[in-house]
Every structure is written in C-alpha cells, then in structure tokens.
C-alpha cells in the first residue's frame, strides 16, 4: 500500500527519484558528455589513465622503487596534478552516491575473481600506456576529439573485449571453481531500518566541497573546477551505472542496447562541444588535444590489451574507480593492478616500443587536418549511426549474443 505523491512530500520524492532507483544510462551519458565539455573548457578533455599513472609514479618515488620526474620537471604531487585530483574526486563522488542510495557495502568476491581483478587491472595499465589511451581518452573523449587513432583504439577494445568474454565463458564451463568460493559482505545498509549511509554520504560531499574551497583559497581555479566536475562524474557514473565495458560487451552477451546507446549519447554531446571548441581554437594547443600519437600500431595493440584487461576486471579505469567507491573489492584489486603496471610500463616498455616504430606508425591523426571539420564530423556521425543500427539489429535478432 504506497502513499500517493502528494502525501510523501516533495523533498522525499526528490530524494527517492535521485537515489531510489538507478538512472538510465542515456541520462548518465548525456550528463557526462556535458561535463566533459566543461572540463575541456577549463583545461583539457576527460581522461582517466593519466591520473592513475600519476598515483603510481608518486608511489614509486615515495618507495624509492623507480624514479620519476627530474630537477627541471619534477613529478606533480597527487594533490597538484589535475587528473590525479579528478580520479580521486570520481572515487569520492561514487562513494557519496552509493552511500546516499544505500548501495554501499564492502563486497569481497571469491579469490579467483579477485585475481582476475588484479590481472585485469595490470593489463589495463599496460594497454593504456602502450596505447596512450584508455576507454575515455581513446574513445569517449577520443572520438569527440576527432582523432582517427581513437577509432583504431576502439576497434582494439572490441577485439579484446570479445576475446576476454569468450575466455570467461570458457572458464565458467571448464573451470567453474575459479569464480566460485568463499565471499563476504560487510557494512551493507539494513533493510527496513534507518541506515547511516545517506548521512555519511552527505558528509563525503561536504568533504569534497571543502577541498574545492581550499583550492579556491589558493587561487587554483583549474583544480577547483576539476574537484567539482570529478565529484559530479563519480556521482553520475554510480547513479547511472555508466559502463563502457558493458557498452562494448553487451552486444555479445544479452544484446540489450541501453549501454551502447548511453555511451553513444555521451559521445554525441561531446562531439559537438569539442568540435566547436577546436574549430574556434584552430591553431591553438586546444585543437590537437586528445589526438594521441598512436595511429595506428600502438592504438590497436593498446586497445586489444586494454579491452582484455577491462573485461577480466569487470570495469575500465573509470568503471573500476566508481565500483571501488561502491565497495566492490575486486575493483580495488583492479586499481592496484593499474597503479603497479602503469609506471613500470611507462618506464620500461613504452619508450623502447615507440623508439622502434617508424613515424608513420605512431602518428597524431587529426581528421579535420586532412578533410576539414565538416566532413570529419559527418564521418564520425556516420560511424555512430552504423554502430547504433548494428546494436538495434542485434538486439532484435540476437545474432551475436553468446548467452
């Protein structure tokens, strides 16, 4: 017997609307797309691997394992690097959102799953540094940046995702023991009783706002914005369960289209915003931002490795961050894997690889430089339309669905 809307009260109704049910993925996509444009206006487009790399590099320096930075170019501290701050605030934002929805709990997966999280994270670290991108820099932001390298990276992501999905299905069939075993949950919100989670969530939000306040006091406008937008991103990702892995993997699983469509919505919004910023900023550094020198060899290699890693882990970099905020320990293992793998790849694997490649295989391919803005936008719109048509056709016919 439920109360009518007028009996519940507007505040409570608003709270339930925001935190009672998950937001649709297309809503999340559009909000992230808008936030991405704001980030680009403030400094640079949305990226995730850069922040994690900075964390790893700082840890290496602190532990005196490998040295990063030099006297002339010291390594930025985790509190000073914009993308490090962004990643941390995404974690806080997701944590706050999970708490306010009473969806936070420390969830320990079976040992085999935790190991897959760790290995997946390490592969993502390797793929992101070799490919100079992740699902954000090389796809969600990379396509709007009108970089053809991002399209190649995405093809790699799809190949890697499919390969890893087939492995997971094989593993479940032949070695089911790996994904079964002892699990544990702690601190979940009790059903039907008052929970402290929403209150703690509100406190976390206040902590984030205090951080913004302090950066404002030291006149660091960029970091003020990165704190607020990062918080917003983490919040939106958790509420809408935004997942790029799912967008690329779902056609091969259930065929359901809401995830790919949600990602498409975000890319479309950013596409128009980024194109405008770049067009008006022609000749300035903004124009070439997020056009990575990975066309085409390291884009495909990095994409495949990253795609395998993210599917094993159950989340990309952003996905690992927001799920870690929700309390899934497998994704904390994924973050650990990334934090370890990224600085080591950056120091020992990427440099010799890039040295060995001829310039033609590691280009910055900015499509408008070859065919102009109008044609470039039309081509990306056509790619998105084709993807949409495929996803909708596959949803109806189930031709590519494996389960």
């Amino acid at each position, binding site marked *: 017997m439920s109360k009518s809307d007028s009996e519940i009260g507007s505040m409570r109704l608003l709270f339930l609307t925001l935190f009672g049910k*998950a937001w649709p993925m297309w809503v999340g996509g559009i909000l992230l797309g808008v936030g991405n444009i704001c980030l680009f206006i403030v400094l640079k487009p949305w990226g995730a691997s850069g922040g994690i790399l900075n964390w790893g590099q700082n840890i290496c320096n602190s532990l005196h394992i490998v040295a990063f930075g030099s006297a002339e170019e010291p390594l930025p501290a985790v509190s000073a690097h914009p993308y490090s701050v962004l990643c941390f605030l995404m974690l806080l934002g997701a944590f706050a959102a*999970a708490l306010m*929805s009473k*969806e936070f*709990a420390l*969830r*320990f*997966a*079976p040992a085999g*799953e935790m190991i897959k999280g760790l290995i997946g994270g390490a592969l993502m670290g390797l793929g992101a540094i070799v490919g100079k991108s992740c699902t954000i820099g090389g796809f969600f932001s990379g396509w709007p940046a009108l970089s053809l390298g991002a399209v190649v990276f995405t093809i790699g992501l799809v190949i890697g995702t499919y390969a890893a999905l087939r492995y*997971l*299905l094989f593993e*479940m*069939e032949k070695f089911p023991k790996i*994904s079964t075993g002892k*699990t*544990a*949950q702690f601190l*979940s*919100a*009790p*059903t039907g009783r008052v929970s402290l989670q929403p209150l703690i969530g509100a406190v976390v939000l206040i902590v984030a706002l205090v951080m913004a306040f302090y950066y404002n006091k030291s006149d660091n406008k960029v970091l003020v914005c990165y704190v607020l937008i990062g918080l917003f991103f983490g919040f939106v990702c958790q509420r809408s*369960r935004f*997942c790029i892995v*799912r967008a690329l*993997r779902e056609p091969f*699983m*259930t*065929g*359901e289209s809401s995830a790919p469509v949600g990602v498409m919505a975000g890319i479309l919004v950013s596409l128009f915003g980024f194109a405008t910023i770049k067009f008006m900023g022609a000749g300035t550094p903004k124009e070439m931002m997020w056009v990575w020198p990975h066309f085409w060899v390291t884009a495909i290699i990095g994409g495949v490795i990253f795609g395998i890693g993210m599917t094993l882990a*159950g*989340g990309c970099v952003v996905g690992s961050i927001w*799920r870690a905020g*929700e309390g*899934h320990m*497998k*994704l904390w293992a994924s973050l650990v894997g990334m934090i370890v793998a990224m600085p080591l790849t950056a120091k020992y694997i990427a440099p010799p690889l890039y040295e060995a490649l001829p310039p033609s295989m590691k280009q910055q391919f900015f499509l408008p430089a070859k065919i102009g803005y109008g044609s470039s936008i039309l081509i990306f719109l056509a790619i998105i339309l084709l993807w949409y048509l495929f996803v909708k056709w596959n949803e109806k016919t189930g031709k590519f669905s494996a*389960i």
Partner: protein
Amino acid sequence: MAVAVDHTLDCCGLSCPMPIINLAKGIKKMDDGQVLELLATDPGSKLDVPAWCKKTGNELIESVEENGVYKYYIRCVK
C-alpha cells in the same frame, strides 16, 4: 516467501557481468516450471535480472532485498 525453490545460485560477492552469466548457465540446466533462487549483492543486478528475464522469457516471480543481499525467484520457461 512461499515459493518452492528447486535450485539456489549464490552469486554474492560477484560483480557484473558474473551474476547474469551464472544465471544464464544455471537456467539452462533446469526444467520447465522449476524455480531458481538467485542471490546477489551487486546493485546492478536489480536492473539486470529483470531485463534478462524479460528478454529470455523466463518469469521473475519475485525479488526481495535483505540487508544487502538481493534475492530473485525465477521460474524456468522453456
């Protein structure tokens, strides 16, 4: 909860996509009319399980939440 359960699938601790992969595999082994109880702690399952049932034609009889564990009762429809 007065539904007779024929098989229980414990997916507690598993995060997306494992609960759904396990569910698909579990339903395959069951006969028409049998009831599967799925336990999960991933909040994503709240949307995924009903969507999967709708798509595959299996009947979601009921879903309840108990202190962080989401319980789904699904009748196999072949």
